[in-house]
């Protein structure tokens, strides 16, 4: 990294840092809301069946409590007539009711059946305990196999929410079989990955009130997703509802689609109560009811020729989507698009299905389908190297994609391919593997091993998604000398507002302190698209840079003509004083809209073409130490090299990589969401554990920069890729240590004990 001349490339402290370390930052539950009532949700207790009605304990004092069931609301009347629109949480489909009506179908154990509001949370919780839903249970679908058997229909008649088929280098299954039959050997495996809880430390939190328009504020990633869902729920026009993000205490995908549910509930309650209502989930409810990473089963066959080169790849991916469609088609899309991995293969077939079950809906979580398929292919690649007697990193070095190669969708890689830089970065620091046996710090006997993984992650929306989305950003210069960046991208901790300030400042020739980035509210900021898909720096950051550049050009052209000297602020202030080209707020602004880079072709029907504008690339080395007595796994070393194109703020980038790495290490050996009869049985932080300070080693983070020509200063995605690969590296290290294959995550001590007992 060369020394930066402007603000870009410098590790400036985050703009919200001081507010966060002093406790001054106000999250939803910290905000004073006069006369606020507290909302809670009455949920189903069966995985599948019918909601027959709600019994209220007559001994309870209901005088200060409002109870809402769906049959009490005027659906179809619309907001203007004092009613509501449609009883759905509108996302891709309209299949998920916001509130199951009496007589309606229950599809999972945490379905909202009724809403309660009371002046205190304690009273609301007591009232909830005095409610008993009457339910009639039906047989439930709780496994992928049962879903595919479709004896019980939950969605259509086959329970398949969505399927994809990718074919490369063959026309049909017969041709594919010919290619696979020609292989000298076939590596075959079935991989299972479990649900994972996002475990943001701020629970889901939302508030609503009416003040002319319906106002909703809360903890969320995507204000315009909530806005879209509320337009359907309320039956109203865009201007009738305003959605604002408040300081958000972590998201990781968990606040991508689920906040629309809380927003719907707050809006229903506030209409019933006639006062502001807020809902802040208790931790147990948050774990039990909200979306998690899709559990997955991936069958993977790797056909190799006599020299070990890949001749054909065959992948069958099935994701458990849970009870409603939510975002499962999009998660599945990303899963299948990454399923063949970053390796040369002339023939590839990937089939993917997302199926309906009676689990609470699974949804967005950092990596968004890619971690599941990455785990499978990186276990497969490791097994191939092992079968061939080739060192695992050498095998990857030989067969990884390089410029000129094509991916599974036929996307020819031309620029920004970090393969060689990543491979070299890991090889340079690897050093000798740890001693095979020894003792740990407690004097217990241990066995050690080393594992690797290499992977890629498409940055931005899939295919023509960014074009369809047509995200916008606006940069405005105001009379008070400040410059504001207006974008709907939220900062949930990842540093979006800091890098936006850096990019705008760089383009305008100003210090970052001159830039403000207001909290996104739908009546203030344009729709820049959701804060997802590793797109914020690359796509929205690019819009910010372009808008700032256009604004500077306009101001400088005017200043040259008017003979005004000085920096951007001086010239813009003079231009505003002269009243030239002002917007409705008396400011100077430029709005730009996304334009695709040249030569992007994607065919949604055949799933061929340029799946992503570019890819990030990454490599991971993990050393593990297994206690021979307890089978506890210690991660003793983790090196993670990630190609981000350009680190706009290297410390923020390192924080993204390290945070994602530890979530992935947790998924590998700790994080287990357990279900029984469709219900999460470990819905508390006591036993649904995530890594602590003591569970991870000091991390060795290597930032690699292979610039993306169409990203701001070369930046591409960073948010998700660190989640994709470390779990496979851990499983590979455990196989290296123990000589036993682990084809699932999480790999818990009891799994190791069982596997070793089976092997001996």
């Amino acid at each position, binding site marked *: 990294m060369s020394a930066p001349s402007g603000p870009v490339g410098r*590790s400036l*402290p*985050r703009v*919200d*840092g*001081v*507010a*966060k*370390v*002093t*406790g*001054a*930052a*106000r*999250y939803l*539950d*910290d905000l004073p809301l006069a006369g606020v009532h507290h909302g809670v949700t009455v949920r189903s207790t069966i995985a599948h069946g019918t909601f027959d009605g709600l019994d209220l304990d007559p001994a309870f004092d209901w005088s200060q409590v409002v109870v809402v069931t769906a049959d009490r609301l005027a659906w179809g009347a619309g907001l203007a007539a004092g009613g509501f629109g449609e009883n759905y949480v509108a996302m891709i489909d309209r299949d998920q009711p916001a509130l199951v009506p009496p007589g309606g179908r229950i599809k999972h154990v945490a379905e909202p059946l009724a809403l309660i509001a009371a002046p205190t949370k304690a009273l609301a919780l007591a009232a909830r305990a005095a409610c008993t839903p009457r339910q009639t249970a039906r047989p439930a679908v709780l496994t992928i196999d049962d879903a595919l058997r479709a004896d019980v229909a939950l969605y259509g008649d086959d329970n398949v929410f969505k399927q994809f088929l990718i074919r490369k280098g063959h026309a049909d299954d017969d041709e594919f079989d010919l290619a696979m039959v020609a292989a000298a050997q076939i590596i075959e495996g079935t991989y299972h990955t479990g649900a994972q809880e*996002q*475990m*943001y*430390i*701020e*629970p889901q939190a939302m508030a609503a009130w009416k003040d002319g328009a319906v106002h909703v504020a809360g903890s969320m990633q995507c204000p315009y997703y909530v806005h879209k869902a509320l337009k359907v729920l309320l039956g109203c026009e865009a201007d009738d509802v305003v959605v604002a993000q408040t*300081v*958000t*205490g*972590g*998201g*990781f995908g968990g606040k991508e689609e689920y906040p629309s549910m809380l927003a719907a509930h707050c809006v229903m309650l506030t209409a019933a109560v006639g006062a502001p209502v807020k809902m802040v989930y*208790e*931790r147990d409810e948050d774990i039990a009811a909200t979306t998690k990473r899709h559990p997955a089963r991936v069958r993977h066959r790797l056909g190799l020729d006599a020299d070990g080169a890949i001749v054909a790849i065959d992948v069958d991916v099935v994701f458990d989507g849970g009870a409603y469609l939510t975002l499962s088609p999009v998660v599945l899309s990303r899963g299948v698009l990454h399923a063949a991995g970053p390796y040369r293969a002339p023939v590839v077939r990937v089939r993917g299905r997302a199926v309906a079950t009676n689990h609470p809906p699974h949804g967005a979580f950092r990596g968004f389908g890619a971690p599941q398929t990455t785990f499978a292919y990186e276990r497969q690649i490791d097994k191939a190297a092992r079968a061939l007697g080739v060192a695992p990193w050498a095998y990857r070095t030989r067969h990884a994609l390089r410029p000129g190669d094509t991916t599974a969708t036929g996307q020819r890689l031309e620029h920004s391919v970090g393969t060689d830089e990543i491979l070299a970065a890991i090889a340079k620091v690897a050093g000798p593997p740890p001693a095979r046996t020894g003792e740990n710090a407690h004097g217990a006997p241990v066995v050690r091993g080393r594992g690797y993984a290499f992977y890629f992650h498409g940055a931005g929306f899939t295919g023509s998604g960014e074009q369809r989305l047509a995200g916008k950003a606006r940069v405005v210069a105001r009379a008070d000398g400040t410059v504001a960046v207006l974008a709907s991208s939220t900062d*949930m*901790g*990842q*540093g979006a507002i800091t890098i936006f300030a850096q990019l705008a400042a760089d383009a305008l020739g100003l210090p970052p302190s001159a830039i403000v980035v207001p909290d996104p509210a739908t009546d203030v900021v344009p729709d820049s698209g959701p804060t997802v898909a590793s797109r914020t720096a690359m796509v929205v950051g690019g819009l910010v840079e372009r808008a700032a550049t256009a604004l500077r050009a306009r101001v400088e052209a005017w200043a040259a003509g008017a003979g005004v000297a000085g920096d951007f602020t001086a010239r813009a202030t003079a231009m505003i004083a002269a009243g030239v080209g002002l917007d409705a707020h008396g400011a100077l602004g430029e709005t730009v809209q996304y334009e695709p880079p040249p030569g992007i072709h994607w065919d949604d029907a055949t799933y061929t073409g340029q799946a992503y504008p570019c890819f990030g690339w990454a490599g991971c080395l993990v050393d593990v130490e297994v206690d021979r007595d307890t089978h506890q796994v210690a991660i003793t070393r983790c090196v993670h090299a990630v190609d981000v194109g350009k680190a706009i703020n290297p*410390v*923020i980038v*390192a*924080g993204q*990589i*390290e*945070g*994602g*790495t*530890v*979530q992935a290490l947790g998924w590998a050996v700790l994080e287990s969401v357990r279900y029984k009869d469709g219900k999460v049985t470990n819905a*508390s*932080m*006591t036993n649904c554990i*995530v*890594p*602590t*300070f*003591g569970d*991870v080693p*000091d*991390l060795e*983070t290597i930032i690699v920069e292979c610039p993306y020509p169409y990203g701001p200063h070369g930046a591409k995605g960073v948010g998700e890729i660190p989640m994709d690969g470390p779990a496979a590296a851990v499983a590979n290290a455990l196989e290296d240590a123990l000589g036993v294959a682990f084809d699932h995550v999480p790999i818990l001590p009891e799994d190791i004990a069982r596997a070793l007992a089976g092997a001996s």
Partner: protein
Amino acid sequence: MTAPLTITVNGQPRTVAASPWRRLLDVLREDLGLTGTKEGCGEGECGACTVLLDGAPVCSCLVVAGQADGRAVTTVEGLADGPLLHAVQRELVARGGAQCGICTPGIAVCAAAVVDGGACRGGDARAQVRELLAGNICRCTGYQLIVDAIVAAAADVERGQP
């Protein structure tokens, strides 16, 4: 009617007419308006609600207000000396140790007690941080930059730098 509680909060004696059985966390947030202390789990696992009770870190969700009667409580709002941040706060900002920030008050409070007590220095400083802060969960950072910040803050404190 219960007798009011007297708690010295961030150096100021405060009298609160609250049930002694309410959680200290709720009394701080709701009665005293000190919303810097966060609730992440309500069961003492995440550490976001950490405050100092007579100088020792506790989860304020597991302490009832009566236990704080007549004692001193320090919250995140009491760490800085006016505009002058505590070394832990300053280093967390400078080194990227805060991301979403919801765990940060608890971590700052716990780390301030630890480094002010003379810990997290010397050759095994990083290991000390990992052990002493193990009750505070952060889901954003992977802990690396927080460890960096606390070790740096301990060095600042050792040098006598505020």
